[in-house]
C-alpha cells in the first residue's frame, strides 16, 4: 500500500515528489499556501496535474496517459472544510462511504454508529449538518472519512475547530487507527506530528524543503519553518570551526555539535538552533562574563504573556530571537517595546549542525 506521487502544476507553482511507505503515517507541514491541500487534491483525483504520475500499491493513479477517477482510487480525503452532505443526517453522512463501498444498509449504519461513537458524536446521529456546531461538524467529517476504509487516508487539518477535550481524544483515536493504515496528515501543530506521524515532510512554495523522521526533524530542524513549528530559535550561516557558525550581522555564534547530528565541516552551510527558554536577557550595562556564551545586542519588539511565562521578541540585526522569561524577571528588567537589551545564550544550549 505504498504511495508515490510526482506532479507539477505551473499555475500554482507546485512541483513536488512525495512518498508514503506501506503502513506509514506522514505529516505534511508548511506555511499557508505551500501546496499541502493541492497535494491532497492531486492524490485524491480532484485536480489534474500538468505533468507527473502517482502510483498506489503498484496501481498507476495517473500519469501522462492514464487517469483513474477519484472513486476508483481507494483514496479517502478529509477536506479542510467539513463539507457534510446537507441533505443527509449525521449517521447517513458517515454511512455514505460504507454504502458506496457496497455495504448493506444495516451494516453501513452499524459501521457509521461505531465511528460516531469513536468520535463521541453518537448523540448527534439524527441531526442535520445545519444543526451542528463547527466542532461537531468536524468530528462527524472525521468519522465519515475513517468509515470509508480507504487504502490511503488523507486528513487535511483534522483537529481544526475541536475543543481542548475533544482534540486529545481524537488524537488518541487517530493514533490507534492510523497505526494500521497508510495515511497522510496535514497539520500546523508539532504535537500532531509527534503523536501521529512516523515521518514529516515540510512543503514550502510548492516544493519539499525538508523531510525526515518526526523526532529527528523537529529536534534538529533545518528550515526556519520547521524550527518555528518546534518552537526553536533558528540562525543560518557558515561554519568557521566545529561548533562555530558565522552568521551575517551577528558575527560568530558559539554552540556545540550534537554528537548524533552530521558534523558540519568548516565553510559549510549550517544552522544554529536553541530554545527560547535558554535565552537570558540583560540590561546592556549588566552583561555578565563567564563560560563560552553568545551575547547579542537587540531591541525588544514585543512582550507576549504565555501562561506562566512571558515571551520576549527581540530584534537583532539578523533575525528576531525569542526568549521566555518569568513575569518577575521581565518586570525587574522593566522591559517594553523599544528597550535595548542584550540576549545571552550559553554555547552549551546552542546546537550547531550542517544545513
Amino acid at each position, binding site marked *: 500500500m505504498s504511495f508515490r506521487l510526482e506532479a507539477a502544476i505551473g499555475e500554482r507553482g507546485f512541483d513536488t515528489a512525495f512518498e508514503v511507505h506501506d503502513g506509514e503515517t506522514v505529516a505534511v507541514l508548511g506555511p499557508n499556501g505551500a501546496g499541502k491541500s493541492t497535494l491532497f487534491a492531486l492524490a485524491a483525483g480532484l485536480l489534474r496535474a500538468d505533468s507527473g504520475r502517482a502510483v498506489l500499491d503498484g496501481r498507476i493513479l495517473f500519469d501522462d496517459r492514464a487517469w483513474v477517477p477519484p472513486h476508483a482510487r481507494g483514496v479517502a480525503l478529509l477536506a479542510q472544510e467539513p463539507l457534510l452532505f446537507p441533505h443527509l443526517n449525521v449517521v447517513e453522512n458517515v454511512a455514505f462511504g460504507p454504502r*458506496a463501498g457496497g455495504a448493506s444498509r444495516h451494516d453501513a449504519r452499524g459501521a457509521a454508529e461505531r465511528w460516531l461513537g469513536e468520535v463521541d458524536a453518537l448523540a448527534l446521529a439524527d441531526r442535520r449538518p445545519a444543526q451542528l456546531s463547527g466542532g461537531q461538524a468536524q468530528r462527524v467529517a472525521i468519522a465519515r472519512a475513517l468509515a*470509508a476504509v480507504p487504502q490511503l487516508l488523507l486528513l487535511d487539518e483534522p483537529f481544526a475547530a475541536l475543543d481542548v477535550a475533544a482534540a486529545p481524544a481524537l488524537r488518541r483515536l487517530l493514533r490507534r487507527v492510523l497505526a494500521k493504515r497508510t495515511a497522510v496528515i496535514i497539520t500546523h501543530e508539532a504535537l500532531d506530528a509527534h503523536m501521529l506521524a512516523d515521518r514529516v515532510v515540510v512543503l514550502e512554495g510548492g516544493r519539499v524543503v525538508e523531510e525526515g523522521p518526526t523526532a529527528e526533524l523537529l529536534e534538529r530542524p533545518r528550515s526556519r519553518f520547521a524550527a518555528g513549528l518546534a518552537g526553536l530559535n533558528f540562525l543560518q550561516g557558515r561554519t568557521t570551526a566545529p561548533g562555530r557558525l558565522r552568521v551575517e550581522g551577528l558575527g560568530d555564534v558559539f554552540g556545540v555539535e550534537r554528537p548524533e547530528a552530521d558534523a558540519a565541516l568548516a565553510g559549510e552551510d549550517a544552522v544554529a538552533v536553541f530554545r527560547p527558554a535558554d535565552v537570558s536577557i540583560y540590561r546592556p550595562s549588566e552583561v555578565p562574563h563567564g563560560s563560552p556564551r553568545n551575547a547579542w545586542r537587540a531591541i525588544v519588539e514585543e512582550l507576549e504573556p504565555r501562561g506562566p511565562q512571558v515571551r520576549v521578541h527581540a530584534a537583532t540585526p539578523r533575525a528576531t530571537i525569542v526568549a521566555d522569561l518569568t513575569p518577575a524577571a521581565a518586570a525587574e528588567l522593566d522591559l517594553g517595546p523599544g528597550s535595548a537589551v542584550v540576549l545571552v545564550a550559553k554555547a552549551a544550549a546552542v546546537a550547531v549542525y550542517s544545513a
Partner: protein
Amino acid sequence: MPASAHPERRGYSGLPRWIYIPATLGVLFVLVPLVGMLARVDWLNFIPLITSDSSLAALRLSLETALASTAACLVLGVPMALVLARGPVRGRRWLRALVLLPLVLPPVVGGLALLYTFGRLGLVGRWLDVVGVQLAFTTLAVVMAQTFVSLPFLVVSLEGALRTAGGRYEAIAATLGATPTHVFWRVTLPLVVPGLASGLVLSFARSLGEFGATLTFAGSLEGVTRTLPLEVYLQREVDPDAAVALALVLVVVAAVVVGVAYGRRLAGAVSA
C-alpha cells in the same frame, strides 16, 4: 448554501423594504387579470359545460399527457442539464444554444417541425412507417409535442441551479468511493431538489398549457389528442366566456397539482 438553503424561521432574512413595492406590483399584474377573468364567469351557466363529458375527457387527457411529458422531460432533461453544467467544456455554448431553440420557436412551428420529422413522410417518420409505427394523431404524439416544447424549460432552469450549487459535494462523495452513478442519485439529485422542482413545475405547466404544437403535430380528437387547451380553443369559437371558465378549470387543477407537489414534497425535502 445548502446547509442553510432554507432560511431558518428564527434566522435573518434581510430584504430591503422597497423590494416589496415591485414585488407587489408584479403580483397584482398577475393577479388582477385572473380576477378580471373570474368576474366574467357566470358559474351557474358554466357548471354543466365544465362537467360535460368532453370537458372531463379533455381534462383527464391533459393531466395524463402533461404528467407523461414531465416524466419524459425529467428523464431526458436532467442528463442534458448535467452535461451542460458539468460536462466537457468543448462545444457547451453551441449545445446550449441548440437546446434553447425550441424555446423561441412559435409552438405551431415547433409542431410543424415535429410533423416534418416524425410525420409519415418525415425524416424519421418514413422509417417508422416502414415498421408500421405511426405517431401522428396518437396520444403519444401529444406527449412528444409537449415534451418538445417543455424540455428546454427543465434543462435551462436546472442547469442554473446546478451551476449555483457547484460540485464540491460530488467531489467529496467520489473520494469516499462513490461511483459517479451513486453520486448522481445520492448527492447531485438531492442537492438540486429546489432547482429540479422549479424545472419540473415549469415544464409541467408548459405541457399543461401547450396548444400550438399539439394541434399541429397530433391533431385534435376527443379522448385521444384533444387536451383541455384544445377544448378551450374550440369552446372559444362558440362562446369566449365559456372558454375562460374552462380555462379556469385548467388553472385550478394545475394549481392543486403543482401546489401539492411543489409546496409539500419537493420543497420540503430540503427544508425538513
